[in-house]
């Protein structure tokens, strides 16, 4: 797989510490929702660093790829991508990568998405792909975040679920909730899985993405509530320190 050069065409802040970056790649071969890319930054002295980022955008004819990146205080790559990168700058990308953690518009079965923190990114690509393909597959998203201000794609998620009854979005807050929220802050548990996800007899395909500990826990709860392990696909990216 070759390294391709993309040009930054848009930047959007999701939260004070996260930014979405839209790149245009003239020779992009196209991607599927759920796939990721490797990004390579090379310093003047030749030192280079490679990081993987999920693609947030749906497949599109404009050959555009949107990535959403969370800034990590001691990161080598993310502070540059979220602070210094400007429209017109170029980045090296390798991809699209991965053929397992993907959703294809031909899939008509019920879909359960469970995101922990920035694990929302590949799941957002699936929701966007569903909309752009005109799919009517029933989608549910359970999105676990620290606090209301940490939600990514908030307005777009609201618009998508308002417009289409077959898409529902539920939030679970781990640190702080909006005022009057019915559930106290806490991690995803069996009651939440039972109340907010498809009944197991629907045999929904489940996609779980987030920090390793979150994914282990959510996938375990899905399985314990009667979902077949064969229908649960996971993508992990290691612990974030503050567990979601």
């Amino acid at each position, binding site marked *: 797989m070759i390294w391709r050069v993309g040009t930054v065409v848009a930047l959007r802040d999701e939260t004070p510490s996260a930014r979405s970056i839209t790149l245009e790649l003239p020779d992009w071969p196209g991607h599927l929702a759920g796939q990721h890319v490797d990004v390579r930054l090379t310093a003047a002295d030749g030192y280079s660093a490679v990081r993987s980022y999920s693609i947030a955008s749906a497949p599109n004819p404009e050959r555009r790829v949107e990535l959403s990146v969370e800034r990590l205080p001691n990161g080598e790559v993310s502070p540059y991508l979220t602070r210094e990168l400007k429209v017109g700058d170029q980045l090296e990308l390798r991809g699209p990568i991965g053929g*397992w953690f993907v959703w294809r518009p031909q899939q008509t079965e019920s879909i359960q998405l469970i995101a922990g923190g920035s694990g929302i990114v590949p799941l957002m690509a699936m929701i966007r792909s569903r909309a752009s393909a005109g799919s009517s597959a029933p989608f549910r998203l359970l999105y676990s975040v620290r606090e209301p201000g940490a939600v990514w794609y908030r307005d777009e998620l609201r618009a998508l679920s308002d417009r289409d009854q077959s898409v529902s979005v539920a939030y679970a807050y781990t640190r702080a909730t909006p005022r009057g929220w019915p559930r106290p802050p806490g991690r995803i548990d069996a009651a939440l899985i039972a109340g907010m996800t498809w009944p197991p007899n629907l045999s929904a395909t489940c996609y779980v993405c987030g920090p390793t500990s979150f994914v282990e826990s959510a996938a375990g709860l899905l399985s314990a509530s009667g979902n077949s392990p064969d229908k649960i696909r996971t993508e992990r990216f290691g612990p974030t320190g503050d567990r979601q």
Partner: protein
Amino acid sequence: MSSEIYDHLHGDYLDGNAAAGELSKIFVMDVTAAAGQCAHCGATKRFAEAHLYMQSPGVVARCPVCEHVLLRLVTVRQRVFLDMRGMRYLSLDT
């Protein structure tokens, strides 16, 4: 998802997806959807389900069932070393 989150904390694993970019230097086809059999316990799982440890200097994929090493991948300068003796076979859709 970001592998950088993993990079500055350690001791935990990612999944096979995270090695796919490096493995694309060697394999023409996508390996994450490939099924591989563990030479130790015989479990057959998608490579995407393997537990991946990315502490330098290389990448180690372990069986998600028994945690034995399936694959090791190390890049030294311009040379890539791939050790797959922990995997009895890998089957891919053509």
